[in-house]
């Protein structure tokens, strides 16, 4: 399916709300297996997205994704900023040629893999992005599918990212980046319908 500017705007706005509403949850998840600031950092990014979009309404999908990417890149810092920023920036570039939603999400997932030098099964946000891209490619995405992808990170042992030094101790915890990515795709389901 094609993603319109209007749908994408609603999607991003809903994501911003979810992050602002759940930043404490993200911090808690990150305290268990990271340095405890994922929620704080993402919240800084969410506020920057709102501010950027209120200053200037994007004229097309590519511009919306680029504005969102730059807000994340400039304000989040740490590893999450470059990871989300790369995904959105690559999607913005791809959106100039192609507005197919499944293809765009795959481009985003590939961007995260490139930036983080990672792949699936390493207990990172890729474990949500890649299954979601596959589901969209197969023609449907539901909240249940997003939740299933998120929950799959719980028993994984981290081999990349901040949690990797905990090795086996990282098992039994949800990956914080996967949780924030799950919020992103729950927002998408709200907009396009599951």
């Amino acid at each position, binding site marked *: 399916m094609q993603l319109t500017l209007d749908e994408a705007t609603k999607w991003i706005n809903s994501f911003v709300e979810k992050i602002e509403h759940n930043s404490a949850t993200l911090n808690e998840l990150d305290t268990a297996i990271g340095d405890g600031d994922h929620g704080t950092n993402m919240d800084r990014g969410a506020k920057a997205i709102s501010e950027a979009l209120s200053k200037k309404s994007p004229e097309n999908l590519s511009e919306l994704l680029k504005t969102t990417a730059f807000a994340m890149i400039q304000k989040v*810092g740490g590893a999450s*900023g*470059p*990871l989300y*920023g790369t995904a959105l920036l690559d999607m913005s570039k791809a959106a100039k040629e192609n507005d197919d939603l499944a293809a765009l999400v795959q481009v985003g997932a590939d961007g995260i893999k490139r930036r983080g030098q990672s792949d699936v099964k390493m207990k990172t946000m890729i474990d949500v992005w890649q299954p979601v891209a596959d589901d969209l490619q197969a023609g449907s995405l539901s909240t249940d599918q997003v939740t299933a992808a998120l929950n799959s990170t719980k028993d994984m042992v981290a081999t990349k990212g901040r949690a*990797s030094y905990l090795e086996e101790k990282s098992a039994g915890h949800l990956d914080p980046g996967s949780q924030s990515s799950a919020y992103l795709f729950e927002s998408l389901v709200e907009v396009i319908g599951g």
Partner: protein
Amino acid sequence: MKKIINNVENIVPEMVSGLVRSNSDLVEEIPGTTAVVRADAKFASADQVGIVSGGGSGHEPLHAGFVGDGMLSAAVAGEVFTSPTPDQIYEAIKAVDKGKGVLLIVKNYSGDVMNFDMAKEMAEAEDIKIGTVIVDDDISVENSEFTQGKRGVAGTVLVEKILGAAARAGKSLEDLVNLGKSVINNTKTIGIALKAATVPAVGHPGFDLKDDEIEFGIGIHNERGYSVEKIQPSKQLSEELVAKIIDEFDDKTGKFAVLINGMGGTPLMEQYIFANDTFDNLKAKNIDVGYSRVGNMVTSLDMVGISLTIMKVEPQWIDWLNEPATTIAW
């Protein structure tokens, strides 16, 4: 927590502003950022590869204190212990590019590596040639909570000095990348802490050590090390670090450079005592010291502790280490 600060949110911009205002002949702020660039008269006509480094704040004088003729062209300050963002790094790159390319010196932490990598892509999109070297001199732990692989710590300053001198001598970007890799491969560091650092936003030391305890192998962001032990005389502390580091060098012939680095809360008196013991311990192992330096170069806020860096050097590297550099802190 007692600190001479105002609002925690403004720590980095206020620090950078103070640093620039007290050294306006050497550095200036890049507008809209917390990055500083050379301000000396020679910089305008400097026909050389630019060198940009940076990272989280809290390690002063690294990196801004080493911006100037013969070292870095610019330095980017992130939030305390947090990597700077790519847009700021990109501004620094643009400010120092003289058409010969720009070398990025990055400490090996996931956040730093990713943010510098993004800045590199932004610069390359504008046809600026970029080379990167990643410093990973900490041999105390293979994987830490902040990185994959070894951490970049005090050895960074020696890497910056050698590459800065080589860039001034007119070396190409490609040569500097190769030289950097070679220098980093020959640089090994271990640190110890008597007391953890207090991050202003947190308000208490990052980990607890009892009055009679020290920790071997700590990083520069309160990362834990490899063992907690009872405090010992300086001689023995030095012996442990010297043995561990020298053990890592296959070839113990030739000359070595030594850096004894205070972590921020350690009196110089103690650093010199430790240096005295270190020279004895190196001599006992027949290690030929061709260059040495003692002082607070790569700190960790108010951490009480010390790190020892030993580098196996080529004769040319000693010359580059000895050359004068006009910066705030070298």
